[in-house]
């Protein structure tokens, strides 16, 4: 258990020593501990603690996926200030993929050897329940073996309201049509005063949690996200993590926590006061690893953070580097300068260069045979 007995000896700082004691004894951290960590410049000591937890949970195994990102429509009623991707219906650049288009895309990706499809899109009033079911069946036809991670909590809520059917029924029908798990998107920051600015028309944070609870109860696992690096305060981050941890106590349905670094370009949210350094990323991920003791995986998306930071985080609590994300568009619309998709070999190389063992997987974290994907 006490893999890092030597760590507290080198910690000079009294509150950190207390936190280290709790981590070593398996006592959940309090909100005040998380707040302290998020404000501390002692990122190496904090990192050592987070790394000890990561090592305890996963050894040096580091997960990655080979997947297709399917953004089926960019038409969205919400038009959130945080988003550079969405369009109004009928305007230039607006699109919706037909189930036929989707089937064709998935077939191509299957030939390239993907294990998983990640399907998310906007809240498009033109689409009915049949569209979603046909979309899912199209994916199934193209890749019967694929693991399908489908639709954010926001989309489930929207479909239920728009079609006038209970949320539980939407979850059940989508599951039957082929959804295996839910991605973690749409959580943003739960604090209402932040949502009011970055996503004023998106459903409240509490509703996101309620949809996730219902999904978990319907037998669907999910991820959970946090959009950070804009206007949120450390206290609001702690509030977000606390709510996730409580729901996890209740359902056990979260597989991974996935912080998303905010990219301001082409959005109307100003994050100009932010310092673009590496300390804030380290603090956030390491704190999440230490505070979210009941969520097994912590994922650093190289596409959002850059390869350098994502790789570095593997020693600061992270055990999952994300996937190849063929066809990703949303974060790139917001100015991410990373490559639109990574090859499997590249992810493996970054993981090995970090002294870790790459394990190819999907969102269920069952190992998949490596190396069958073409770049």
């Amino acid at each position, binding site marked *: 258990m006490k893999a890092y007995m030597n760590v507290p000896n080198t910690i000079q700082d009294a509150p950190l020593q207390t936190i280290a004691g709790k981590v070593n004894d398996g006592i959940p951290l309090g909100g005040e501990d998380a707040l302290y960590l998020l404000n501390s410049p002692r990122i*190496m000591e904090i*990192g050592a603690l987070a790394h000890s937890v990561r090592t305890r949970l996963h050894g040096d195994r580091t997960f990655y996926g080979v997947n297709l990102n399917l953004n089926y429509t960019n038409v969205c009623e919400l038009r959130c200030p945080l988003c550079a991707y969405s369009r109004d219906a009928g305007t230039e650049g607006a699109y919706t993929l037909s189930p036929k288009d989707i089937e064709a895309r998935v077939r191509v990706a299957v030939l390239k050897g993907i294990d998983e499809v990640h399907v998310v899109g906007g809240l498009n009033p033109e689409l009915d329940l049949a569209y979603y079911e046909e979309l899912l069946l199209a994916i199934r036809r193209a890749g019967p073996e694929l693991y399908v991670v489908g639709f954010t909590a926001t989309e489930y809520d929207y479909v239920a309201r728009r079609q006038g059917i209970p949320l539980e029924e939407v979850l059940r029908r989508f599951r039957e049509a082929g959804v295996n798990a839910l991605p973690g998107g749409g959580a943003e920051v739960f604090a209402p005063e932040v949502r009011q600015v970055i996503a004023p028309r998106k459903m409240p944070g509490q509703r996101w949690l309620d949809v996730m609870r219902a999904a978990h109860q319907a037998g669907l696992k999910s991820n959970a996200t946090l959009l950070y690096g804009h206007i949120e305060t450390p206290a609001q981050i702690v509030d977000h993590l606390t709510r996730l941890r409580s729901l996890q106590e209740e359902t056990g349905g979260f597989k991974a926590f996935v912080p998303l670094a905010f990219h301001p370009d082409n959005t109307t949210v100003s994050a100009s006061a932010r310092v673009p*350094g*590496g300390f804030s990323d380290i603090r956030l991920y390491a704190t999440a690893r230490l505070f979210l003791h009941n969520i097994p995986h912590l994922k650093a998306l190289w596409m959002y953070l850059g390869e350098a930071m994502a*790789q570095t985080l593997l020693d*600061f609590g992270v055990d999952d580097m994300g996937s190849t994300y063929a066809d990703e568009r949303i974060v790139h619309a917001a100015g991410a300068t990373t490559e639109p998709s990574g090859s499997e070999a590249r992810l493996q*190389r970054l993981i090995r260069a970090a002294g870790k063992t790459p394990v190819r997987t999907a969102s269920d974290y069952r190992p998949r045979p490596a190396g069958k994907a073409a770049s």
Partner: protein
Amino acid sequence: MTRDTLKQAIYSGRRITPLEALSLFDWDLPELGCAADYRRRMAWPGYTVGFIVDRIINYSNRCEAMCRFCAFHARGGQIPGYDLTREEIITKVEELVAAGGTQVMLQGGLHPDWSLQTHLDLAREIKRHYPGIKLHSFSPAEIIHLARRQATTPDDIVAQLKAAGVDSVPGASDLLVDRIRREVSPKKCSTAEWMTVIESLHRHGMASSATMTYGLGESPAERIEHLRVVREAQDRTGILRAFIPWSFSPARTELDDLPRATAMDYLKIVAIGRIFLDNVTHIQAGWLTEGVKMAQLALAMGANDMGGILTEERVVKATGVETRMTRESMISLIRDAGRIPVERNSNYEEIRRFT
């Protein structure tokens, strides 16, 4: 030796052997960072982090060395050659002075046509206009090149550069491992010649620095060998004001098939450099090549300096790496790391602190 014994040795301040340093590559970043920061505090107590307002003037891209790792030098038909005129160079210095800058780095190459006199005249002219500006300029490779060209000794070249107003010479060491130098930069000075120049600079009371370019196909042991040469040079002379590692950027060079060194390599080299080089006070974080995130992290892993604002650098830019830096962003980056930003001069003396 177990990891714990080595850890104790590091925390006791004892000098680390090359073999011990090699084993540090297996340490996790946080563990290594804690140890390196401990040694940083022994070498540089307190919490200040320095930076300098300087300007690199790449006065020419004509270079006889044609190193395989370089994307900057003129290549017939592909990259046109240029030489800045004396007036253009003076204007650039003037702009730096107007912006409150204190240091000029003149960096060219092994110029096929310029005589020693051209170099000396350039230094004299800058000093005549701006006597307060420090010239941290040229390099050991250029000094060896000029010595050959003039059929004289490197020591003589150093003496003449000094007389013309050059204050200090960047170490521009690339990788001080002859096996690698023969492969990637066979026309540049050898490790022994580099050492000769450092000793000459010492004799003439001039300071230098040591850089490290890694990711050139070297082994981990060869990385440590570079550090060993630097430590020995510093034991002999004590004139190396700083150690500055950066990764090789393969794009647009003849070595673009080499896999790029990763962020972890960088952070580990900073930390191991700090632990191994117990005789070097300053370690610079390389925001230009590694990006601001990694440079800021380096401050937690042994670095205590952010180097220069480097207005208008062109050599790294030629490989497609582009990072911009201003005085303001430098200050906020240092503050965000929990350190106190200090603008310094070439000699690492404090000019002002931003509390």
